[in-house]
């Protein structure tokens, strides 16, 4: 038996594309956010409301990742924002190569901010860099307050936590959800995480979230 030291990165192909995307975005001074959550947490609704609230102030483009269909891209396009769909055909996460080709289909020169809406999945997408500036994790109230403790990786790696569907917390609430537990558990691993409780349905909390976005777009390359 002969042992050979290799010391080679296994996902280097993905990393190379992620670096390339990151350089491309920096050249065009675009803030890029990789949005990750379980299916049904309200990512697309958050995006359509965010785009409407920031209309005339920040030019937003969207890359939509789904296993099948272009339902989400159609929803984004109703706001007037440019959107490109990636169908992964079964894969549980977006890859940097897929994002690379989608970036080429967006009107880059006209944008300040690009959201990548990843495939609905709280686990796998956290392990694949796409070239984004920050990860944004969305947790919605009906999913339960134990998710940061159970799925720590994505909460540890994200810059922002959006707690969505907080309209459901209004008494008499149909769900048992301790929002303080979510905040405490998320901050245990990630003290600096920005937390915005929002309702994409009512618009509650969007002023603070949109203010953070505007500030981040402004500060990133200045």
């Amino acid at each position, binding site marked *: *038996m*002969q*042992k*050979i*030291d*290799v*010391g*080679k*990165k*296994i*996902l280097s*192909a993905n*990393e190379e594309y992620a670096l390339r995307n990151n350089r491309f975005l920096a050249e065009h001074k675009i803030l890029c956010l990789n949005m990750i959550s379980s299916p049904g947490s309200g990512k697309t609704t958050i995006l359509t409301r965010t785009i409407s609230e920031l209309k005339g102030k920040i030019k937003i483009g969207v890359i939509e990742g789904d296993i099948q269909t272009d339902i989400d891209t159609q929803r984004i396009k109703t706001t007037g924002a440019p959107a490109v769909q990636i169908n992964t055909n079964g*894969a*549980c*996460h977006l*890859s940097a190569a897929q994002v690379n080709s989608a970036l080429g289909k967006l009107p880059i020169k006209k944008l300040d901010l690009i959201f990548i809406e990843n495939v609905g999945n709280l*686990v*796998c997408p*956290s*392990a*694949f860099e796409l070239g984004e500036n920050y990860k944004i994790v969305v947790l919605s109230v009906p999913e339960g307050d134990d998710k940061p403790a159970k799925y*720590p*990786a994505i909460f*540890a*790696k994200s810059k922002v936590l959006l707690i969505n569907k907080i309209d459901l917390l209004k008494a008499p609430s149909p769900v048992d959800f301790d929002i303080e537990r979510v905040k405490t558990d998320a901050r*245990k*691993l*990630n*003290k600096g995480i920005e937390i915005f409780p929002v309702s994409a349905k009512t618009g509650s909390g969007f002023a603070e979230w949109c203010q953070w976005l505007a500030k981040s777009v402004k500060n990133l390359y200045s």
Partner: protein
Amino acid sequence: MHEMMVAQNLLSAILEEAAKHNAKPEAAKISCGKLNAVNDETLCFAFEAIAKGTLCEGVKLEIEYKPIQGQCKNCNQQFAVELSCPRCPKCGSEDFQLQPDAPLMLEEIEFQTE
């Protein structure tokens, strides 16, 4: 089930080394950070399935998980972060910067010798 994609990348990396050394691989050691979302059983299962009929058929995988590293913002101590109760072991502070997770690495291959 992204372990299948990891397995495919791993298989091509091992086959490349095997061709370089002109030998049959018997075992491979890989390492990855704990936040990498790679399940060892799933990866071994996926690898076994795609290695069938290649030079890597029967190759045993060993996976080492690297601890998550943190740097204390209070006393600068580097330490392995315990997910259940993360705090600096030196000064007890809960204010720390999480270091980037260790990447997935192919560390070592064992080849058959004549």
